[in-house]
């Protein structure tokens, strides 16, 4: 049973359709990647889940119940374009955001202290936001998102603007929140981070879902039956079993073979092992980046035809 269930959501604006029948099931306690090129409809979908805008058709179900306005207290949302009131004090600001999400003042203050401590921002509590560096402001925004410990977290490009050290700290925090049971919807262009932390993904393009599933499944579906073989010998092609591919630009020493139709990897490896000195072999799975580009491009060509 999915924690967040989006069913056939449609949103139209004057002149264009932002979402045309999008469905998505986010299981409880997982990190779910929402991917797609610019203008695919990710932000619109996120705003609908946050009830900032209303869908024209379709339903959003949270924990088995149709979402109402009161459910926004169960969500923490970090938008891609995010800011803070520059003139407010850091502590007051975090407490304000927590109370807007329905916390009592005492709870919000206690939680604020806990998080500021965790991010080493304790001595900044009474400073104005405008005195903070950009990286520190990003941390304050993150704290403002999670202060009320929501069961559902939505991060839109959370790592943009973070340096590698802070990005790593953020990643650790996000994983920790998942381990504590939060469900996390994660929208990004950064495919490397998707491979690192997402279990499942949905790829939107032109207002529609074009790809969905667990990261491993998706990779298996898109694999090209390519094997990278490490050997000091020169491998001759065998057209019945495999063709030779030009070497990988990064790993030049690998010999890359593409299996012919119907040939399984085991047979090819044992065939090679009998003739050459193999030091290692790996099945080459496509990166999420390749899958993303391939899927988006092929769909665009389809649409143009």
């Amino acid at each position, binding site marked *: 049973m999915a924690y967040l269930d989006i069913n056939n959501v449609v949103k139209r604006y*004057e002149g264009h359709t932002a979402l045309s029948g999008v469905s998505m099931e986010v299981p409880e306690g997982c990190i779910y990647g929402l991917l797609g090129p610019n203008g695919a409809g990710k932000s619109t979908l996120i*705003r609908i889940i*946050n*009830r*900032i*805008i209303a869908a024209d058709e379709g339903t959003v179900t949270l924990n088995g119940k149709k979402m109402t*306005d009161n459910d*926004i*207290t169960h*969500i923490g*949302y*970090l*938008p891609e*374009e*995010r*800011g*803070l*009131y*520059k*003139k*407010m004090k850091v502590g007051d600001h975090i407490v*304000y*955001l927590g*109370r*807007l*999400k*329905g916390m009592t003042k005492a709870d919000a203050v206690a939680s604020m202290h806990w998080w500021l401590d965790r991010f080493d921002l304790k001595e900044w509590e009474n400073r104005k936001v405008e005195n903070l560096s950009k990286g520190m402001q990003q941390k304050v*925004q993150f704290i*403002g*998102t999670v202060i009320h410990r929501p069961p559902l977290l939505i991060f839109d490009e959370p790592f943009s603007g973070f340096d590698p050290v802070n990005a790593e700290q953020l990643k650790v925090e996000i994983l920790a929140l998942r381990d504590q049971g939060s469900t996390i919807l994660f929208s990004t262009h950064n495919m490397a981070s998707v491979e690192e932390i997402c279990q499942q993904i949905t790829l939107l393009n032109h207002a529609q879902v074009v790809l969905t599933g667990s990261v491993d499944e998706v990779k298996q579906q898109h694999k090209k039956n390519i094997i990278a073989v490490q050997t000091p010998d020169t491998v001759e092609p065998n057209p019945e079993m495999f063709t030779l591919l030009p070497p990988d630009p990064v790993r030049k020493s690998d010999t890359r073979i593409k299996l012919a139709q119907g040939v399984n990897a085991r047979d090819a490896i044992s065939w090679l092992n009998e003739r050459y000195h193999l030091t290692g072999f790996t099945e080459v799975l496509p990166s999420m980046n390749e899958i993303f580009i391939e899927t988006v491009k092929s769909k665009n060509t389809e649409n143009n035809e």
Partner: protein
Amino acid sequence: MNKLRLIIAREYMSIVGRKSFIILTLLFPFLMIAIGSIPILMAYMNDKGDQMQQIAVIDETGRYAAALPNDNKFNFVAINGDTVTNARDFYDKSKGSISAVIIIPRDVDSTGVVNIYSEGTIIPALESTVKNALTDTIESAHLAAMGIPNLQQIVDKAHVNIDIHAIKWSDTGDEEEASTDIALFLGIILSLIIFWFVFFSGTMIMNNVVEEKTNRIVEVVVSSCRPFHLMMGKIIGVGLSVLTQMAIWIVLLGIAGTIGGSLLGVSGAVPSPDMMGAGAAVTPEVEGEFASFMRQALAINYTPIIINFLLYFIEGYLLYCAIFASLGSAVDQASDTSQFLTPVMLLMIFSFYAAMGCAENPDGPMAFWCSIIPFTAPTVMMVRLPFDVPIWQIILSHVLLIITALAIVWLAARIYRRGILSYGKKASFKDLFNWLR
């Protein structure tokens, strides 16, 4: 409701908690006094700065030159008429040491004409000094020439200075002294206060909305509350800060009034009524004017004026500030607001001039219609109020204004919730219209 309160509190504190607000609120009255006293100060400096002017007086009659009083500005020097045949030559020969020549002709008694000659401009102060001095002197000379004993005293007794007291018949048959001047002045001041505060808060709200949009806090906030709450929280929060400011000024005014009043009370005790007829001719007159001012000022019925002022202020504030908030939501940066701002500004400025125009004729058709039409009602009705507007007109104007203000708030909220989330593309009036649907 809880969230709305939170937002109001944040907006309010973000203004009232600022050091600049506290400083400005306390300094503003002094600033106004300073600005008000600049003309007086300048006049004083003029008096001080001018050099003493030498004025030659050629008195052909030989009787009136002495009547011209020397003061710190003018020094009148009588010159024997026979020795000077040509005034122009005399002036030229002085090489600028004399600034003007006055010729009192022989037939001044019959013609009443005196000439002042100069190459420079003749300043009004010289003209009036000469005129006042010679008029009185020649008048007394005429009276004396008639040979009737004590004529001067008889004339002085006959001399009257008509003082108009406007008396208002109240419904109970009492007579109240009322001054249209004081009532009008009060109306214009209150109208100005409404205009100024609505304008000031409106632009502040608009800039706040633009700022929230440009620093992208808005999406975080509206993921926790309805856009309507954010908009209303802002409007109400700013409104309360304005009322706070007004309250502080009223308290300051009260303190100043008490101090001023006690000071006046001390000096006012000196010329008691039985002393009035005696020597001091000026003080009782001033005192009498002040007393009549106070009597008339106290005769105005303030309760309905204050209640209506607060109502019109709140209603007009809501009406215009909702418009300003929605305009702020439609743009990405403050400099883009001008295209939307122009029509609103024209409307506001019209309402201001309509109010000033209605001061001339507070019972005319223009005053009537402008005090009923919601967009001009707050400023215009405040000017009309001291003149006993029929109660049905006041009620009608309030009802229409409240309905319009609520409708505008509703429409503004629709524009606002779309506007705050739309970036990049510059919105047009057509877009605003689309967002309404």
